[in-house]
């Protein structure tokens, strides 16, 4: 999706007076799956803050990305409970199958692989989340199945 300046004005408008810089950036991130440079420049102008400050916020928090992310996000929980139950193996498997490292996106822009510190469902570790669908007690085998299903769905979307 291409960046559309008029939509940004709407977003800022909607957040009202005294809108928080972070919440506006969050909305942009949610809409375009990254923060386009042009959007950050506009935000800086509208908020009257230096671009350097917008950039510092955008690079400080994990949920922002300066490069386009995939259509689907696969998050591997690497919280302590998942770690001691084998999250590393699960992550390894995803890295090899998708051919990307964490925080990278597949060439076809379908999948972004990421790790997350803890999703708070430690009882079910290791946990993998595909977009908003949680999968608990994940094994190498389960990962393969999950990916197959995701790829089929991604294929269907196109």
């Amino acid at each position, binding site marked *: 999706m291409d960046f559309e300046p008029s939509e940004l004005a709407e977003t800022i408008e909607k957040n009202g007076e005294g809108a928080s810089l972070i919440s506006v950036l969050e909305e942009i991130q949610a809409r375009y799956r990254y923060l386009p440079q042009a959007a950050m420049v506009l935000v800086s102008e509208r908020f009257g803050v230096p671009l350097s400050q917008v950039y510092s916020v955008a690079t*400080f*928090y994990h949920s922002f990305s300066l490069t386009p992310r995939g259509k689907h996000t696969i998050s591997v929980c690497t919280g302590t409970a998942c770690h001691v*139950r084998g999250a590393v193996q699960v992550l390894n498997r995803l890295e090899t199958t998708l051919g990307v490292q964490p925080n990278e996106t597949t060439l076809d822009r379908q999948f972004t692989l990421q790790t*997350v510190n803890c999703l*708070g*469902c*430690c009882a079910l570790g290791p946990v993998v989340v595909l977009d908003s669908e949680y999968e*608990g007690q994940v094994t190498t085998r389960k990962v393969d199945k999950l990916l197959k299903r995701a790829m089929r769905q991604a294929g269907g979307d196109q």
Partner: protein
Amino acid sequence: MIELRSPQALADYRQRLRVAADPQQRRIRVCDGTGCRALGSRKVLACLQETLREAGLADEIEVIPTGCPGFCELGPLITIDPEGIAYNKVSVDDVPAIVAKTITKGEIIDGLVFVDPVTEQIIIHDNELPFYTKQMRRVLELNGEIDPTNFEDYIAHSGYDALSKALWEMTPEQVIEEVDQSGLRGRGGAGFPTGLKWRFCRESPGDVKYIICNADEGDPGAFMDRSILEGNPHSVVEGTIVGAYAMNATQGYVYIRNEYPLAVQNLTIALKQAREHGLLGRDILGSGFDFDINIRIGSGAFVCGEETALMASIEGRIGEPQPRPPYPAQSGLWGKPTNINNVKTWANIPLVIRKGSDWFASVGTDKSKGTMIFSLVGKIRNTGLVEVPMGISLGELIYDIGGGIPGGKEFKAAQIGGPSGGCIPKEHLDVTIDYESLIELGAIMGSGGLVVADEDTCMVDLARYFLNFTQEESCGKCVPCRIGTRAMLETLERICAGRGREGDIEYLIEIGQEVKRSSLCALGGTAPNPVLTTIRYFRDEYEAHIYDKRCPAKVCKGLITYEIITELCTGCTICARNCPVSAISGEKGQPHVIDPESCTRCGVCRSLCNFDAIAVH
């Protein structure tokens, strides 16, 4: 919509709801927390509703989505009232039988009830499960009982009674006095007396004051704040309003992680309901007191759990901590006096006010009163969320409630307090759990994450894991934390890779103590704890890594090799086909071999082998 503009209106409303409720009503409670959802509870819920509709029972039998009752290990959980029949690991396939047998005829289905793994005793009712009977559920009492999105449910269970009492029967000073008397201490980790903190804020000069609920639960392995906000959000809202009245604040914020979408959703609903009923906003309960609460979503930075960083983040800046003093009570959000407390602290407030400080302080130890919520995770049989009285022993928590270690393995250590905490070894299983005793052993209460390690957990690797976490999450503002944690991490990585040197342990201790002493905020101030406590109790494991080049738990990749056991290998080729670096060779039907040179020790082969033919040395 009923607007509640007097204590009497609230009391009448509650009375009507209670009269209308039938205790013998047949209803099915389905856990709708994130944990059970991950295991498929939403499908079970939908299927139950559909099956009841088909059977013509939809009008008679309620299906209620509830918050998490805590026994995540056995999810999806459902409970059938009025008997309280607890079924676990319920799948969609079980639903027709549940409706046909249990709902219609009252018959118990054998395969779905709990069987005690030790005594093999069958336990049918939820209030008899050993996991619950040894707990003392106060804050979590309504989790799993009520529908968190149903306002009437909370009201019927004495909801907002404490607020009514505080606003109409107590002065702000009396509220603070009651909280002070209860001995409640901050449940976010540091354990600062809550009443005292409130008094500082109240007495701080200024006409604008803020209240913050810290729900940025970043400790990996802790999920109680999430569970409370998902399962009983009104308790947090009520506690916060009481606090605002006591400190004369007009605006509150709940700062919550973006990794917790369901908690955000349920809290948003609760705030809307409270506002619509006149319990939030202008002229609360007709008392003339105005206060409102907004939600701020965190953007994924662990350091924002630190209060000064959190406030910077609410203000729209990067989450860098500030030196204290000034404390938030003097100069906090936008330079105004601010009070900040953890979700669990706020959720305790309605209980303290409604039932009184004596009731609250009737359990616990001399200096740690009330209950504490722990998330039991890792190598433990009954994973889940538990609430226990302060002063319980670690052993009771792990064995009596947690059910011990699965797979016949041996307990090695409990890691308490997440990346800021430390580990407690077997020798100290009898330690009582309270703020002071844990600090004495080098750990901290923290937010209550308790990760159990067994003989297969490498303590050096665990320390490396935590340091990797804190190093990545260090905001980079102060030198000791930014560089000190990196130096420690590099040393630990070297040790785990088999390149440890003499003097490494002493170096880790020296630098760790310095980082603790000189870091700006608690992130750096506690980051070395996991390393220092593992050295204190498991120095032999460090020595085995450094001097014998051996990882006793067979975890550290640089110190292990994978090998195929020829006698067990059937030559099915699954390992060879899946090895990411093609390090496995062999003919179909013949035993395979791993080339140790190209093997990266990723463990995929071992996880896929159907014949346990792959050994680790």
